[in-house]
């Protein structure tokens, strides 16, 4: 079944066209990768899907619903969560608080029920804590729960971002360079983690990654973006041997 459908999206900033006629179709239960050289427009695609940007042209559908003009909080409520390329945790807050905040969108109690801690809210609050702690346990972050999130080492901060995204109970998870700055060992763990959470939470995953081993190892299908244009799409094997892709990454060989 089709989960996400991006149709002919073009994104312009003033005179600069960041993405041209981007098309994407993601089915339930897939892991799709997006690669491309720096400045190819990958994060812009993410921002269009998550409602950060409204595309200049084209439209985005999630579960057949038009979300082209939805705000990013509305998009998250519908079931698309994301992580950020340049980790954006709530730095001054604890690890647990970071995850609890991601539960807020599902809180049904109104402001006053919450402030005066009426039974309905107390129950919700208890469930929130339980769920958050479970998540932290799942991602092996439990023992840091009361640490300030900015005090975590880099790799764990990335992991916490994933935990936080999962707490919003998404159907589709967008990962923006989750392996950036990781050593090979950490990358292998990350690949395992991505596969695990996919199974455990019934996720569909769309990820941007520079780290070829990770993307080749995890994704079944890969899109390649260069200068805002989709230059290739296919299985990891096909991508690896595609001359256009090689050219985009290595440049054209000029004959002297």
């Amino acid at each position, binding site marked *: 079944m089709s989960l996400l459908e991006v149709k002919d999206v073009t994104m312009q900033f003033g005179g600069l066209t960041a993405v041209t006629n981007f098309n994407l179709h993601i089915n339930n239960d897939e892991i799709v990768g997006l690669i491309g050289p720096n400045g190819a427009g990958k994060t812009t695609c993410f921002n269009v899907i*998550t409602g950060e940007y409204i595309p200049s042209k084209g439209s985005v559908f999630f579960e057949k619903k038009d979300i082209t003009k939805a705000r*990013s909080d509305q998009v998250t*409520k519908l079931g698309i969560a994301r992580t950020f390329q340049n980790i*954006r945790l709530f730095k001054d*807050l604890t690890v647990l608080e970071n995850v609890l*905040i991601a539960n807020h969108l599902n809180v049904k109690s109104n402001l006053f029920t*919450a402030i005066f801690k009426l039974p309905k809210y107390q129950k919700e609050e208890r469930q*929130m804590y339980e769920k958050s702690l479970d998540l932290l346990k799942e991602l092996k972050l439990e023992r840091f729960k009361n640490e300030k999130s900015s005090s975590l080492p880099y790799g764990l901060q990335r992991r916490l971002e994933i935990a936080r995204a999962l707490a*919003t109970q998404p159907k589709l998870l967008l990962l923006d360079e989750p392996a950036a700055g990781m050593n090979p060992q950490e990358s292998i763990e990350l690949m395992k983690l991505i596969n695990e959470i996919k199974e455990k939470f019934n996720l569909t995953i769309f990820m941007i990654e520079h780290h070829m081993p990770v993307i080749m190892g995890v994704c079944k299908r890969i899109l390649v973006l260069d200068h805002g244009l989709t230059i290739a799409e296919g299985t990891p094997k096909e991508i690896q041997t595609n001359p256009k892709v090689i050219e985009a990454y290595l440049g054209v060989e000029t004959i002297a």
Partner: protein
Amino acid sequence: MSKKVITSLILILITITLLIIAQNNLDSFSLRILNLCGIYVIFAVSMNLINGFTGQLALGHAGFIAVGAYSYSLLVMDPQLKEMNFFLKPLIAPLNTVHWPFLPALILAGLMAALAGFLVGAPALRLRGDYLAIATLGFGEIIRIIFTNTQSITNGSLGLKGIPAPDKFLFFSMKNSLMWWVWIAAIITVIFHFLLIDSSYGRAFKAIREDEKAAQAMGIALFKHKVMAMVISSFFAGIGGALLASLIGTIDPLMFRFLLTFNILLIVVVGGMGSISGSIISAISITILMEVLRALDQGFMGLPALPGLRMVVFALLLMSVVLFYPKGLMGNEELSWNKLMNLLKKPLLLKEVKK
């Protein structure tokens, strides 16, 4: 009962005991300062909610305080008093005959300020950072200018005189009922804010402060939550304004210049943005300090009287806090037993190490 609840109850009891002692021992001048402290606690804590916890630099507090002060005064003054006040232009129809008791007037004052907060916040909170600061500052001034010019409602620049203070606390006649109202209101304000910050909504506010984009990506509707914080903040500003009117007994638009907003902002910064206990400590000490410094203006220790010297010293003190203690007294942490104990332990530990 949890440890938190017990500590809070003990603190409240201590406050009440202190108030009883104060009521029996302080002269009227000191009592007035005590009440002013309570009112500034309300101002600072409520301003901290929007500025410190939600991270929205809103500078319209004086405007909301003015709305509260005027609404309250117009409701509690009796018709005869109103006629005496409005000798240039009579007060308009329904207002000239209303005469409400204290508590309903106080609450309506808060609600009116909350409404003003909503009307200001709805457009202004679409802006961010410095732009929000200037827009809210502008709205605050506009409120004041409107009050100066709507003579048949506010009596214009003549202001209102003889605003009555409550003669009873709930149903009890007290020596100083206003003191009880002020401090019970302050205690309720503080508890309310602690509970709010501790709730899921409070966490959402803090998330917005930390990183708006990330908060939104977590499904938090930014605008809705900012407006929420603004409305609550202005409600309490209105309550504080009403209490201020009944303490001073005279109000005029000039009292609510943005100087008032700055005073409160400075209290909040000195106490620590995002710390309720910091705001309380800072509000009380700065209010007292301002009164103590009054001596400077009248000349002391052989110095000649120099009007303005008080504010110079005050400004210098604040500058040094900002320059050398930019996070304020408490940063964004709350005072707790553990921290106090740690503070006490530290010097002891150092001594031991030296041995």
